Every structure is written in structure tokens, then in C-alpha cells.
């Protein structure tokens, strides 16, 4: 079981990866910890000031659209944000989030406002979301299969460490 409670930082629809972290910043470094001060700078200047509290991201449709750049997921993790709840995710961002051990939950987020206190609990089969500020409760199916295995390992790097050589290369067909 995994449980987390934090203040909601809310975003609208179609938040693209350039907004999460601008490509121009990657000229200086690709270290996500060094990039944290620039997180969402073009659409939410001073967002970094909110990070003194325990927080999570709440968004509308298609979060993480645009470029597939993985720094846009790493930087969220580096900022200490382990959970993103969105109405939907862009597919490349969803993969990058899971691969970095971020719990990306697809859920109706219309009940959430900036600053709401949100608690998330993930169990074997279910994910429950409480909005403690409004008493809203949402029940969702927990990720299963490979996605869950990667999440439970803490991301793709620790997941690979759990595989043995045969599992790593076992799905290779002999004719290739």
C-alpha cells in the first residue's frame, strides 16, 4: 500500500512538456534537480515557492502533450511530487511518468481546486482519492501488469534490476 497527502497545484487542459520545462533551459543542464526552479515557469511563475509544502499536481485533459522529452517527468519527481492526477495524459508522458516512479492517475479532476488537501491511497486493486477540503471521494482501479510492476519497483531503472538476463533478452526471437 502507498499513501500520500498533499496540497493540490491545479492546471488546465493540454499542459505540454515545453510548459513543464522549456527546451531553452536544457542548454545549461539536463540535471532535473538543477532544473526544478524553472518548473512550469512560462505558465506558472513562482510555482517553485509552493514546493515548501507537500504537494501534488492536478490537471485537466492531455497532461504532458507535445514533446516526449523525459526531463519533463524527471523534473516533477525531482521537485518532490510523486503523484499527478489528470483527466487524461498524453501517452508519451504517461510512460515517462511511470518509468520514473510517478503515480499518474487518470481521474475526473473537476472536483479539485488550487490548494485543496488531497489524500491518495493505492492498494493492490484500487486507488482511492479523497479531497479532504471538499469531502469528495473517488474510487479507481489500480494500475496492473507491467505498469504496476514498474511502479512498484520505483521506476524503470530499479525494475530492470529485478529482471534476470533471460527475462531481459528472453523475448528476443532467434530469427532476428
Amino acid at each position: 500500500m502507498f499513501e500520500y497527502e498533499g496540497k493540490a497545484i491545479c492546471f488546465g487542459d493540454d499542459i505540454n512538456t515545453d510548459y513543464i520545462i522549456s527546451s531553452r533551459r536544457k542548454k545549461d543542464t539536463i540535471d532535473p534537480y538543477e532544473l526544478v526552479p524553472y518548473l512550469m515557469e512560462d505558465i506558472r511563475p513562482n510555482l517553485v515557492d509552493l514546493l515548501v509544502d507537500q504537494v501534488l499536481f492536478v490537471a485537466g485533459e492531455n497532461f504532458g502533450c507535445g514533446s516526449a522529452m523525459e526531463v519533463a517527468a524527471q523534473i516533477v519527481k525531482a521537485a518532490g511530487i510523486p503523484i499527478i492526477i489528470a483527466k487524461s495524459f498524453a501517452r508519451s508522458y504517461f510512460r515517462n511518468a511511470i518509468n520514473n516512479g510517478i503515480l499518474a492517475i487518470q481521474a475526473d479532476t473537476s472536483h479539485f481546486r488550487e490548494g485543496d488537501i488531497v489524500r491518495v491511497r493505492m492498494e493492490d486493486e484500487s486507488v482511492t482519492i479523497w479531497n479532504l477540503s471538499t469531502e469528495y471521494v473517488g474510487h479507481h482501479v489500480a494500475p496492473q501488469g507491467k505498469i504496476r510492476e514498474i511502479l512498484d519497483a520505483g521506476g524503470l531503472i530499479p525494475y530492470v534490476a529485478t529482471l534476470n538476463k533471460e527475462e531481459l533478452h528472453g523475448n528476443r526471437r532467434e530469427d532476428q
Partner: protein
Amino acid sequence: MAKTIVEKIFSAKSGKDARAGDIVDAQIDVILTNDASGPLSIDYFEKMGGDRVIHPERVVAIIDHYVPCPNSKVARLHQKLFDFRDRYGITLVEAGHGIAHQVIDELKYIRAGTLIIGGDSHTTTHGYLDTVSVGVGASDLAFALITGALWFKIPETIRINLTGILRKGVSGKDVALYLLRILGADGANYRALEFHGDGVGCLSLDDRKTICNLAAESSAKCAIMPLDERALEYCNTQHIRVDDCVVPDEGCTYSRTIEIDLATVPLMISLPPRADLAVAIDEQLGTPIDMVVIGTCTNGRISDFEIVDEVIREIPGPFMVETLIVPGSLETYKHMVNRGIAGRLLEKGAMILPPGCGPCCGSSPGTPRDGFNVLSTANRNFVGRMGNVNSHIYLSSPAVAIASALTGHITDPWRGGHV
């Protein structure tokens, strides 16, 4: 049961009878990376304990985003790619040869029926030759370097039927923006696009690349154009194998079908700050422009600059605004020089930048000033995309962009271009 192209290719690459919604481990035929995502993939590769690249002959790294290298920090990132090549035997294409999506095309890595991944969202481009070509993040790419495979959820497919013939001057870019307006920024999320209809035949191979490239802006996983006569002829002249080409089964399931009569597609302009905010040019004629950029993986090919040349020969006078020209590849640049196109552009005051991504995402120079309206042939116009949040980016075809550079405002080159 009848299958779509994406279901067929994933079935072939996973050895499973795969359907939309299934999760499969699929063998990758080509792995593409660049200097924006590649160094990070190498970090992941090392942290995953990677000690060999299982199929180095399938891996190409192309230096295109930061060209030429702007500072010592990027120089170290570039060095990582060179070191990785030396150690693991992958192919590396050095800075100045062009944009990854153009260069791997020229190097003939793209072949029908294959599964391609790239550490770049515009990897969708390569679906124009009947492939499944998907953009992935750096960690997925590292995993594929080590194992040769990757898990995929097989997407549902949206069928696009193209009929009719494009009006004079209307290009693949206009079709792409028109389609994007219909789909919206998330209209194809988790889905494949499959293009059909006799209208495809009037689209050049370059137009098709542009359309598949911009599919990324509707969040599509991939965009696929089955080989038609024109594509088969192209593959034949280029000596590209077609024996694995794939067509969908009759009666396969599409999540949605969109019909577009190409004859009704106007010249299109995308308004800042989203590519899907696309309108007919009539609504934007006269909008003042301060800077024009022609190039990028969307529209930096020889045929794009041939159209540019056609327009500058018809409209006299110098460029009225800063005009940046970014050839998509060295081959494109050489062609422009040999045909006199580069000279004619310089005569009018253009700045020609080295082949690569250019200022499209602010990685290479060409940053607009505060308050600038930029007209670009790129695929993205988000706030701050070109490195300045106080500029506004409009998107168009090369023909409209170059005509507008000559007038200083958004101009239809075939209707009163000389005003």
C-alpha cells in the same frame, strides 16, 4: 478477425495475435535518437546496468538540436554520444548533417512493415512509408537499447479518408493543419492514424511526411500511410524493400472515420499558442509579421525550398522582415546551392542557418524579440517555444511563410502576393 495496420505490425513484431488494447513486447527494427534525448538515454542505460547494445546496427544517433554546439555544457552532452558510439558501435551522424527525421530517411532506414522508435515526438513522421513509428522517452529508449524490445499497448485506429485533389498552392502542411483542427490537441491520444482514399495519390512523399509529422500534435501514437502506387514507385527508385508492406484487413475496426475532400482544404494558419488553433488564411490576411522561419522536421525539405524559390521569383523586392532559412539536411542545403535557390534567398536578405532543428524549440539560435509575431513552418507554437515567452508564433506552409516575409504580413502567395 480483421486487423488494422497497427495491429498487424505489432502482431508480427511480438509473435502474438495482437488486438487494440493488448499489451505486447515487440521487437524494434530501428532506434533513433538525437542530442536532446540521447545523452539522457545514455544515463538511463548506465543506471540500468547496460553493458551492451543488443543490435547496434539498428541504432542511429543524430546531432540536430544544438547545432553548432553552443557552449561547453552541451559539448559534454555531445561527447557522451561520441563515447557511446565508440564503445557500443552504434551509428552517429555529426552536427551539420541535418535533422534526425530527414537524415534517417536519406540513409534509408525507413522501410514498410517495420517498427521504429525515436527519442523524439516527431518520430511519427516515418509512418509515411507504411511503418509503425513512435516517439518515446529516454528511459524507454534505453530499455530498448539493452533488450531490443519494448512493451506497447496496441492503439485503436482512426481512419482518415482523403478524396479529391488539392487546389493549386495548397500543400501537405495545410492538410495537416486542417486535420489537426478537426482532431484537436488530444484527439488522437493513444490512437493510431491510418490514411486511405484516392486523395493520398495527389500528395507527394514529402507532403505525406509533413502530415505524419504533425500527427504528433494531435497526440497520435503513430500515423500510417499504406503504400500506394506513388509510394511503391518511390521505394523502387530508392531501392527500398517493400516485401513487408502491410494493408489493413477488410472489415477491421476503426474507432472513428474522418472524411476530408482535399479540394476544400484552404491555405491554413495556426494561431498562437497551439497548432490545433488552425484557421483558413482568409481570417488572418494582413496580420503583421516580424520574423519568418522556414525549415524544421515539418517543412525543411528540398521540395519545400523549391516552392519557396517559385514564390520569390514571382514577388519582387527584398524580405521585409528577418528571414531565417534552416535546410533540413546537408543534402537539402547542397541542392539549394546547386540550384541557385540559396543565392536567390541571400540576395533578398535571408539568413541561412546550419542544417538542423534551428530555432524551432529554442535549442539553436534565432530567438525572436519581445512582442514579435513569428511566422514559422514548424509544428509547435507554444508560449516560449522559440525561447522567448513574449513572442507569438504562427504556423503555415513554406509558400505562405516566404510570401509573408516579402510583404511583412500574412500573405496568400497566389492571391495578390505583390501588394
